Each structure stands twice: as C-alpha cells, then as structure tokens.
C-alpha cells in the first residue's frame, strides 16, 4: 500500500468476507513503481555506430537539466478512484457514508443499534476498516447484515482502492445504504476521499469538547457530527455548548445530532436524517 501512513513495504491490507469466510490479501494494483529495480537489458547485437557528436548538447543538459511542469496532485490517484466509486454508488442508487472518529467513540455500537432499529425500513450493509482483527465485523454480522472487514495492517485509514475491492465482495443491492466504518483516526481519513456521499464524524462526550478545533480537517470535511454517549453527561465535566460552538466554528454548516447509542436517546433525529438522504437519492434516480 503506497499512500498509507508509515506502513512498511511488507504490509498488506487484508480483506475478510464474513459471508463466505474467505480471506484475501489486497494486492496493490495501482501500478505504483515501488522501485523494484526492473532493469531490463536492452542491448542488441547489431552494430550501429552511434557516433554522432552530441557531447555539446548533453553537457548543456546535464548542467541545467530540463524543467518539466507536472502540476500533479499528490493524492490524484486516490481521488480518481474515489470518483469511480462515487459513480458506482450513484448507478446503484446506494447511499454511502464514511464514518470517521477517534478510536473508542462508539462507532460500532452506533452502527449495531442503527442497523437493528432500522431493519424494517432500510437495507444497510457495512464495510469495516480496522488495522487488525475482525472483531467489529463479527459484531456487525450478528445484526444479520452483510459485512466485509478490511484490515489495513499498519495503514491508518481506508483508501479508495481498498473500498473498491471491499465493494466487489460486499456486492450491496440497489437502493441500499453502505456504511463505511473507517479506521479510528481523526487525521488521515480526512485526506482520503473514498467516493462516499459524505463523512459523518462521531465524537463522544468522554473526549475533549475542543476536538473539532484540534482536528479541523476532519470536522470541516464532515457534513454531520454525531455527539455520542450523551447518557454519560451527568458524570462528566464535558461542556456541551462549548463543543457545539467548536464544531460550528470549524464548520458552520455541520449538522449535529446528540445521541446515546446505548440508551437510544436522540437516535430518531439521526434515523430521520438517514431516511431523508436515501429518499432524496431515490427521487434523483427517478427523475434522471
């Protein structure tokens, strides 16, 4: 994996399909040159005499070199693949959400609860991203939905090509929801578009209220912030108003839902928003 953070050459992302139990290694097929040293020897036998006198021009070139304008976006490859994913989702009328947060914010619990509560109304399938283990995927699988686990190894976020591979395995049906649970990390996932409709940032009240200010990239790139674990507020010194202010400072348009995935408090608004997103998607599909 080339663009992952600090990963070593030997690190490979691994994909586990909880339906079939199949585990496969994700090969880096983006065609990056990892300096494998492909030294082909193009010597040929016939005897041209390569004697034209190019000393002068070569010397000139080696002194000054040739400047080539590239204007290349460093993340261009990922962005291109993300757009392909976006088209894939649109063609199937699938609502894809990229769930991002720090570890331990309650993403998986929120997902379990959401899937179970909306079972009759929405078809939700899940792509799980974690560095290691298939624990989260097992928890999600227990709710009865389809789930594919991507283990990024030492990589600390999902990338568009990993998602594309995961989607092939997940094979979500038309008019459904795909929840992408990104690796718990508030830095890198902000930089890597996966092709989702939007990012949903989950922040729990057991974290600091100034987190949106500390990680502005993430909270700016998210359309929604879910403030989780509000049932614990009476036991904490968490300043709710301050947190909302911080989020709005970084991203004035951010939608905020205050919920508790364990007690169920406030979840209705999040569910309504979800249903609204899918129905607006459907109507777009119909008029098109």
């Amino acid at each position, binding site marked *: 994996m*080339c663009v992952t953070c600090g990963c070593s050459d030997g690190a490979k992302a691994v994909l586990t399909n909880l339906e079939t139990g199949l585990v496969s290694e994700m090969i880096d097929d983006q065609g990056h040159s990892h300096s494998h040293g492909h030294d082909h020897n193009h010597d040929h036998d016939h005897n041209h005499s390569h004697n034209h006198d190019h000393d002068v021009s070569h010397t000139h070139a080696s002194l000054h070199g040739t400047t080539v*304008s590239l204007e*290349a*976006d*460093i993340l261009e490859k990922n962005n291109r693949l993300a757009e392909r994913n976006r088209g894939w989702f649109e063609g199937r009328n699938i609502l894809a959400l990229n769930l991002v947060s720090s570890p331990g914010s309650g993403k998986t619990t929120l997902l379990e609860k959401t899937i179970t509560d909306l079972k009759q109304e929405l078809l939700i399938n899940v792509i799980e991203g974690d560095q290691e283990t298939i624990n989260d995927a097992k928890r999600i699988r227990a709710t009865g939905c389809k789930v594919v686990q991507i283990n990024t190894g030492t*990589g600390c976020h999902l990338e568009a090509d990993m998602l594309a591979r995961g989607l092939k395995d997940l094979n979500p049906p038309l008019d459904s929801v795909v929840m992408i649970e990104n690796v718990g990390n508030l830095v890198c996932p902000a930089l890597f578009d996966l092709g989702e409709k939007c990012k949903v940032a989950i922040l729990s009240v057991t974290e600091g209220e100034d987190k949106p200010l500390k990680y502005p990239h993430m909270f700016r790139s998210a359309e929604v912030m879910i403030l989780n674990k509000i049932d614990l507020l009476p036991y904490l010194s968490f300043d709710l108003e301050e947190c909302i202010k911080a989020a709005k400072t970084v991203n004035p348009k951010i939608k905020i839902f205050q919920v508790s995935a364990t007690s169920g408090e406030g979840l209705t608004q999040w569910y309504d928003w979800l249903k609204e997103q899918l129905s607006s998607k459907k109507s777009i599909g119909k008029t098109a």
Partner: protein
Amino acid sequence: MHELGITRNIVSIVSEQAKKKRVKKITLDIGKLSAILPDSIRFCFDICSKGTTLENAELKINEIQGIAKCKNCDNEFEIEQLFGRCVCGSNDIKCIAGEEMKIKEMEII
C-alpha cells in the same frame, strides 16, 4: 506520520513521469493548512528516494499561505487555521489557498 505515505506517492508519481531519466530537482507546493509537515516530507524524502531516479535530488517546497474568501461579502484574507472570521462578522468562509498538495515541477537530466 502520513507524510511517509505521501512522500512515497510523490516519489512514485515523479519517477513514473521522469521515465528512466535522473531527476535533479523537484518542486512541491504544500499549503500551510494541508495537514502535511514540510520537514517530515524532507525527512522522508531521503529514505523514499533511495535507489530511485530521484536519489540525491534537490527537494524544494513552496509553502503556500492560507487565504480564505468570505462567502458573505467576498472579502479575501489570510488565515493561519482552517477556520476564522471575516471582518464582516461571518465565519462562513471558503479556503481558497493553503490546502495545496501538489508536485509543481521536476528538473530532469
């Protein structure tokens, strides 16, 4: 430390473009608000370029100042963070510079 991965991508894109020619210098545009640290890129560049056509190439990084445009009154002003408030009072701003992550050019021999 996502700079290591980012730097690998830089080396990969440039060596692909340079074919087999030796690269003498590359110039990057890195926005001050891009969540990438130029010093980390410099540190990683020596490691990532080893054994490639970019080995020993000079690395020039242009750090681009953050500039925001107010969505309310179109005023443009410098920002040091991804958020801020315009003199008109609105905090609904759009970052128009400072988030660059670009390989501007390379010098090949």
